[in-house]
């Protein structure tokens, strides 16, 4: 029970912290989107850990202007977990066979440094 109360107090602090970050960027347009494949195939291939790694990396870097969403099975199950990065005014980039470590690097290299990690991008078929 003590743990629950302590946690709720923490949540209040997090609210204040999050609010400060949000206030810096009010424009909802032109946000980068990250889409994780979360169909049965994606989940069984490790999409949950990929999603949580992305969110954790965004948190560590104080990035709050990226939208993280999911999609279902797109019929390329052998490439799961798949992650799309869609930057404003740029073509969609699809990463395949992503794991938690690759996901963190995608945030660092693509989201932060704006460099596509070519070797993990979907092969042209």
């Amino acid at each position: 029970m003590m743990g629950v109360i302590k946690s709720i107090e923490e949540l209040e602090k997090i609210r204040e912290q999050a609010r400060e970050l949000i206030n810096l960027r009010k424009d909802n347009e032109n946000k980068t989107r990250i889409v994780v494949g979360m169909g049965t195939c994606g989940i069984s291939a490790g999409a949950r850990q990929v999603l949580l790694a992305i969110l954790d990396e965004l948190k560590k870097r104080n990035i709050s202007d990226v939208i993280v969403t999911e999609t279902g099975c797109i019929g390329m199950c052998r490439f799961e977990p798949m992650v799309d990065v869609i930057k404003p005014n740029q073509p969609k980039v699809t990463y395949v066979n992503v794991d938690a470590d690759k996901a963190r690097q995608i945030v660092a290299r693509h989201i932060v440094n704006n460099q596509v990690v070519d070797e993990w991008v979907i092969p042209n078929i």
Partner: protein
Amino acid sequence: MKEISLHVLDIVENSLNAGATVVEIEIVEDSKKDLLAIEIRDNGMGMDEQTVKKALDPFFTSRTTRKVGLGLPLLAQAAKTAGGDVTVHSLPGQGTVVKAWFKKSHIDLQPLGNMADTVASLVAVHPDVDFIYRHVIDGGVYRFDLRQIRRKLQDVPVNNPLVVNWIKKFISDSLKEINGGAE
């Protein structure tokens, strides 16, 4: 799937694809009865009797990108392997209830896995859905209600990465507490 908590994530995704706005997840671990029971209730569009029957068939899906739907059949297989089974109750327009149970001591029982990760993932990508998660371990009860958290957060969205991280920690700490400190 390597863990039961991943099946839960997958089954809840079905609920969300069916348009659910409220999803209740209940896990009951009962050592005396040698039982692990899972129940997922949603207020999605539901299914008619014929569709419910087909839902456990791996060659049926409501999706159109691929011709097999494996979520429920995989859960049913995991349950049957561990001395249990799955039932699906549904009514069109009223939602669906999926129940799965397992023999807790069964050697082929998959580990329950990380429910904190499953719930945090769901909140992260479905911030508008009301998730209620109840977990009972031998009489110790933990209840998570996203609506309460949303009220506390006011204008801060529940899928903010800081909040998702807090949810993960809150759930895993609370589960440890009702489990008597054991993992």
